[in-house]
């Protein structure tokens, strides 16, 4: 039992510890691709440390909500992290129907992030919050179309088992996996507010989504927000990567190493996409997401009728 | 014999249709009253007795004396215009009534095949009813309406005798009394109306509507 818990804790530590690194990697590669040297990959750690030291400033109009929000966001995201099988070790929290809980925990985080942003009453943050909420409306179905469709065809409702159930021997399921991973990628991009939906390092308030929502946070709050956004990237990264890991269930270590490799690969892809693609117009984002949804449906249709 | 009287009755009806003077109406009412009371005596002629004569006498008094006098009185009191201006061409009215009468006669002839009715009294009674209604429908003066109603009642009376439906004496008397009171009330009403409204025509009675 103790071993089991230890085994469960490891991936948790993995997420908690390495998620800033992943972001660092992405930024580094982006810099390289654009021909800059860029910051060291440890940069996110430095920033987090710096933020945690800084004093926290609250706006005059801020209420308990904006004091509460970052904490809730962080803890929700963290707990959501508990449910993902990192490299096929059975996660600590894995039970029937945890894919729903997973999605809705992130929903909780979103709820509090939004009201936290609206708490100040600044028009910019309102703008960001409105966009966040709108895109979330379309992002939620995508989640269920990707992992959910897997669940439906496999009959399992626990993330761990679903991922275990993936076989790549059947060509149709191969297609299935690939297509759904594409829409999963869209999802990731949206949820983590990367290009082409959002630009993490623009500084024009009118065009931002995530960044503008945390405009008025500082110190510990900002630290929590940043950290949870890093964790989110990690989570979605894992979520994406685990689609392609047939070897997990045969061999623990092989699976794990492959998992790492894929994660790195993903970071490269993200970086590459961010350099290649320009940001979408805000009003085109829903279409983009609907497109992803459409892919999901198509994908499921294929699978249902090919099977 | 009854048939002859009934035919006379029909003639009065036709005269009623063509005439245009109120005086004549009253006269016709009186004539009909007499005719009817004569008609209802006939069944009793065989075995005559005082007790039986009550009804005919009463009806004679009511129909031929009191009611016409009363109506005359109203006409004189209110000095109603003696000539009634019909709102339908007299010829058409005559045509209509003759047509309906003939239809009734044919019908009752047909019916008499099935059931024991003497055609002529039956038919004439019915035509009285119909013509009474027509009179009400096609005339405007309220007093004429009263007359029409009386004609209707006469028709029913004749009808009753023609099918030999025995009513207890009390009922007969009650019926006569009722008619008397109705006419009385109507007379009062006409009086009131002529004092309340400008003229005694139905057209003025248009106040109540949704």
């Amino acid at each position, binding site marked *: 039992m103790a071993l089991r818990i230890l085994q469960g804790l490891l991936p948790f530590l993995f997420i908690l510890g390495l998620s800033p690194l992943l972001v660092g990697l992405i930024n580094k590669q982006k810099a390289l691709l654009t021909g800059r040297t860029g910051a060291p990959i440890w940069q996110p750690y430095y920033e987090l440390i710096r933020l945690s030291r800084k004093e926290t400033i609250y706006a005059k109009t801020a209420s308990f909500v904006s004091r509460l929000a970052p904490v809730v966001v962080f803890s929700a995201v963290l707990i959501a992290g508990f449910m993902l099988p990192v490299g096929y070790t059975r996660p600590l929290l894995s039970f029937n129907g945890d894919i729903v809980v997973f999605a809705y925990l992130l929903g909780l985080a979103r709820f509090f992030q939004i009201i936290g942003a609206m708490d100040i009453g600044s028009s910019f943050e309102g703008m960001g919050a409105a966009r966040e909420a709108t895109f979330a409306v379309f992002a939620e179905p995508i989640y269920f179309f990707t992992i959910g469709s897997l669940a439906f065809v496999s009959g399992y409702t626990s993330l761990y088992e679903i991922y275990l159930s993936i076989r790549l021997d059947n060509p149709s399921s191969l297609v299935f996996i690939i297509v759904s991973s594409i829409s999963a990628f869209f999802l990731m991009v949206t949820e983590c507010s990367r290009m082409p939906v959002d630009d993490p390092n623009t500084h024009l308030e009118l065009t931002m989504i995530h960044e503008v929502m945390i405009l008025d946070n500082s110190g510990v709050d900002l630290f929590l927000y940043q950290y949870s956004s890093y964790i989110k990237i990690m989570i979605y990264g894992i979520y994406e990567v685990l689609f392609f890991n047939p070897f997990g269930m045969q061999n623990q270590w092989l699976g794990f190493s492959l998992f790492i490799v894929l994660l790195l690969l993903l970071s490269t892809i993200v970086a590459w996409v961010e350099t290649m693609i320009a940001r979408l117009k805000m009003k085109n984002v829903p279409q983009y997401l609907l497109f992803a949804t459409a892919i999901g449906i198509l994908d499921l249709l294929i699978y249902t009728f090919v099977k | 014999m009854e048939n002859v009287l009934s035919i006379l009755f029909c003639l009065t009806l036709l005269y009623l249709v063509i005439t245009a003077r109120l005086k004549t109406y009253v006269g016709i009412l009186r004539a009909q009253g007499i005719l009817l009371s004569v008609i209802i005596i006939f069944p009793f002629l065989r075995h005559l007795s005082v007790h039986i004569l009550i009804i005919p006498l009463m009806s004679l008094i009511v129909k031929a004396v009191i009611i016409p006098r009363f109506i005359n009185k109203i006409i004189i009191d209110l000095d109603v215009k003696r000539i009634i201006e019909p709102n339908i061409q007299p010829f058409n009215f005559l045509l209509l009534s003759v047509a309906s009468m003939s239809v009734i006669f044919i019908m009752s002839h047909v*019916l008499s095949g*099935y*059931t*024991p*009715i003497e055609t002529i009294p039956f038919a004439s009674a019915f035509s009285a*009813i119909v013509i009474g*209604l027509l009179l*009400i429908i096609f005339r405007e003066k*309220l007093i004429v*309406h009263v007359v029409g*109603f009386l004609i*209707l*009642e006469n028709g*029913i009376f004749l*009808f*009753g005798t023609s*099918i*030999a*439906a*025995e*009513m*207890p004496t*009390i*009922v007969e008397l*009650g*019926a006569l009394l*009722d008619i008397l*009171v*109705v006419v009385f*009330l*109507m007379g009062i*009403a006409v009086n*009131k*109306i002529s004092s*309340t*409204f400008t003229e005694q025509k139905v057209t003025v*009675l248009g*106040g*109540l509507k*949704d």
Partner: protein
Amino acid sequence: MEILIPLAILPVAGFIACYFVHNRKAQYIISLSAAVVHLACSYLIFAEIIIPAESDLFRFDALSRLFLLILSHVYFWILLVSYSYLNRPAMVKEEKSKKFFFAMLNIYLLANTLALISNHLGIFWVASEMTTLSVAPLIYYYRDKESLEAMWKYLFLVSVGIAFAFIGFLFLALSAGKTVLEGQQLLVSLFTLHAKQLNPIWLKASFIFVFVGLSTKIGIAPMHTGDIDATSNSPSPIAALMAGSLRGTALLGVLRVYQIMAPTSTAAFARSIMIIGGLVSLFAAFVFMFKVNNYKRMIAYSSVEHLGLITLGIGTGGIAFFGAMLHTVFNSLTKVVLFLNAGNIHKAYRSREIDSVWNVLQNMPWTGWLFMLGFFAVIAMPPFGIFFSELMILQGLLSRPLLLAAVLFLLFFIFVGMSRNVFRMLYSNSPNNHAAAIDDKFEITHFTSLVLLILLVILGITMPPQLHSVITQISKDFGILL
């Protein structure tokens, strides 16, 4: 025959007394005592504690007993309130008509009683003509243009109608040709006995004429107009009296003829005629509920609706017949409540226009709430009795789905139209925002309405065994086995 002494002779005595005595209070007491005795007798007869001897002119079968109870009940309550009603400040013109008020009421009672207990259709005819005559002067109570017109129309129309009915009765006599009944008196009991032999053609004819003729009195569309005018322009006790009992008396005539036809082959015809009549009156009520702008007329139309439902129920037969009989009871009681409170509203606002009455609930709480409850009762809301009876009628209609659909549709829109008007009266804000200075003390009309409403609830929820047995008896007389 001695039963006639309290039922018939007493009212006559009352009439004579009221005619000579000119003190109003004395008149009131005399008539009230007559009414009380009448009520007591009719209840005793109803509960079969007294079983009067049947004569061939008068009979006391279940039908008569039920209607007699309704009559004396309604009459009693109306008489109770009418004294305070007469004492209200009024125009000089009315004073004249107040003299004959109680005398006429006595005649009214007499006439209705005779009509209800008559076994001889001739007597029925005479009596029902008499009811018209007795009520006509009362309609003319206010002595203004409207009431005069209303009286004239009612008198004339109903007289013609009753003449029609008489023709119908004569046809009935005619139908007895070539049978054992040839030359017999027009006794209902006799005719029902040998109904099978009667000539169907004349039976049909007689039913048509009786139905059409008496419709003017019952208020079956399209002959309902005179009735509407009369009820809406007469003083509210009289209106209540007419809606509560007079229509019932006329209905009895139709029922008698139908009773004769029931065992014969022509029953189906009569039934379908009644269904048509009922449907038409429902339709008329439906149309006018949206047009009407005079709340007394509105209530009158609602009683057109309910009489329509009743005829519909009678025509449908089965459980619906039972429901219809129950409905007559409940409807008459409810109408009394509505008309009395409408009278109070009229007194307070001096207008019968719905638009010129506002915020009754606020200005006169007692009347307002009682009127509202009465309204709920009349649109068949539980726990008031009408709900149950209407449910029975509708249930009976289930065998004719299309008819049921039509009826429900009409009922729903009647409900909408009526509630729209009533609510506008009850709590629409005043057009010119000044609160009306209206004193609305708790008076006898309120007491009466309260009692009647409670009675309605009790009758509705706990069906008294006597009532049940009587109505079952009636249905048995009409050859309906439940």
